[in-house]
């Protein structure tokens, strides 16, 4: 009954493309703006039709992140959020969102390494998560983690950048990922006004090489950005722009739902 994480994520993305729309993947930091908010926010996200949720494990030194995620991580840590807390949140999130919404962990390496990576994989699988993203783990080393991930039925979602040489991008095939996360730009996470000019070209070159659906993120913050990915990508990933709304003082679940409705509108062809 329990489909492996990779199958489940792939099925969800396939269903989106069958319906003729982009999938919407969102990132939130576990425990932001408060530990209680996380499960409520995820319930709201699933209710409006978000396809997959990345649960961010907070880290004290998030190298690839801009001010929004630096702040959300620092606040979550002040609330006492740990890897263990995140696993428990994932369990509750899975119970709330049902079997069809993707649930992934996103974490820098050190917290998982200290927790014990194999133990983390076991506990993540038991919590009902589908897979994980490790933004500071190079592709070569991710390849070495494939047997461990497979043993727990978890998907590895690798990250590629616009400057990744195509030869190197080919490495992701070893992971047979349900999708690949392509960053829009060289830089850190954070909401931006525009998408880079060269993005479409980058996506067109990567597509035949990676042989997996492409999810695009970093700086995507408006319906128009999502719409601009039409025909080039399979999914949009939104993080900082959502966190900015979660932290703006109102009810986080309502703010999340309102914003994602707008983004989902961009996922469907106008």
């Amino acid at each position, binding site marked *: 009954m329990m489909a492996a994480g990779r199958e489940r994520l792939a099925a969800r993305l396939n269903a989106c493309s069958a319906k003729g729309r982009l999938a919407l993947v969102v990132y939130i930091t576990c425990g932001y703006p408060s530990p209680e908010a996380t499960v409520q926010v995820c319930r709201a996200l699933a209710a409006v039709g978000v396809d997959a949720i990345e649960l961010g494990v907070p880290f004290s030194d998030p190298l690839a992140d801009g001010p929004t995620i630096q702040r959300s991580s620092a606040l979550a840590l002040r609330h006492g959020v740990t890897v263990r807390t995140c696993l428990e949140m994932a369990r509750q999130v899975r119970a709330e969102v049902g079997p069809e919404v993707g649930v992934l962990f996103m974490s820098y390496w*050190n*917290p998982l390494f200290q*927790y014990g990576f194999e133990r983390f994989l076991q506990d993540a699988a038991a919590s009902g998560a589908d897979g994980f993203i490790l933004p500071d783990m190079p592709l070569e080393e991710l390849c070495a983690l494939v047997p461990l991930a497979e043993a727990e039925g978890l998907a590895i979602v690798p990250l590629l950048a616009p400057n*990744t040489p195509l030869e190197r991008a080919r490495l992701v095939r070893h992971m047979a990922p349900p999708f690949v996360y392509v960053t829009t730009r060289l830089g850190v996470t954070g909401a931006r006004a525009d998408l880079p000019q060269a993005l479409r070209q980058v996506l067109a070159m990567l597509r035949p090489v990676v042989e997996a659906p492409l999810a695009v993120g970093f700086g995507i913050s408006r319906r128009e950005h999502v719409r601009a990915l039409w025909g080039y990508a399979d999914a949009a990933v939104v993080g900082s722009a959502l966190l900015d709304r979660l932290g703006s003082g109102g009810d986080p679940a309502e703010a999340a739902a309102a914003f994602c409705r707008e983004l989902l509108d961009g996922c469907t062809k106008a």
Partner: protein
Amino acid sequence: MSIRETSRVRPSLFGAAGWPYPDEHGRYGPYGGRYVPEALYPALVELEEAFSEAVEDPAFRQELQALLETYAGRPTPIYRTQRLSSSGAQLWLKREDLLHTGAHKINNALGQGLLAKRMGKKRLVAETGAGQHGVATATVAALLGMECVVYMGSVDMRRQEPNVRRMRLLGAEVRPVETGSATLKEAVSEAIRDWLSNLGSTHYLLGSALGPHPYPWIVREFQAVIGREARAQFLQRVGALPTAVVACVGGGSNAIGLFHAFLSDAVELVGVEAGGRGVKTGKHAARFSDPERGRVGVLHGCYSYVLQDQDGQIMNTHSVSAGLDYPAVGPEHAYLREIGRAQYTYVTDEEAIAALKELARLEGIICALESAHAVAAALRLAASMGRDEHVLVGLSGRGDKDLETLSAAAEGQ
């Protein structure tokens, strides 16, 4: 200890010939590596290739050598103390404090600055703790006509204020970093984020033997001039090698630079970390001496010993010396310690201040608080040795920047 020969020994500028680390994965045994966001990976490969080529290019070596001599003031002397350590072993100081800009940091800044120019970069970014590396980078940027941005924790900007003024006078922009502990760790993170966002135009001029491969290797190669000079000077002056070589270890650049020439000699290598208010208090930067908090992990792209809590969150450190106030140690030191080739000890704030004052009063040399850690440890070591033995200390920098901190410490007492 014998040094293993492998088929793939990296080209070397000043380093020990035949030492096979870093290996082709950028590792020193298990330590090191490249734990970085994907966009940095190709940039690190490009840097590694550019450096490998530069090292083999006689024109590059000549240009660097000329600047080290005519601009930075190399070679620096070794000096035998006259009144300090009057019993016990004889103490020798490798006087990096006499270099232009006042610390060993200029060796690496000149090397990487020339490398950046060769790579066609127009802009240098750097992190700085004590401000010495920031000043060295600002200096090199001025010399080579490059734009320069230095990230510095706001706490460090206050305690090393003269260096902030020097950097600005040299035409650099100093950007305060307010996050976390607002010291060196956060400055490194911000410098990496800047680099990541400006890869085409910018070289990240990292100031210590830490971070992702190839940085620990590059920095070691540019600092290895310290040990190579000192070893030859020692043989010439004393006709023998020292019993021990002692250096302070922040990220580990002056120490690795001094140690490398002695790796295959029968010479004790001693690295000195910042003991802060004492290892038991948790307010320190002694990664190797606190088994509870100092454990293997990853910070700033590098697998090494890192001060962290049970959940893998990086801890805020404390040291009276801003240059040693960093929670991770360079990967090669972790490896030298593991194979037993070097030993690591620590010196507290109080002991370092006392050593600084003693050196000033007895020898007329005001050294940096960082270097004072090495002096204190060397005095301890020398006391247990005979008069016919010699201890060589890396005097990594001068103390002008620390006058404010010293008066504050005096008032606090």
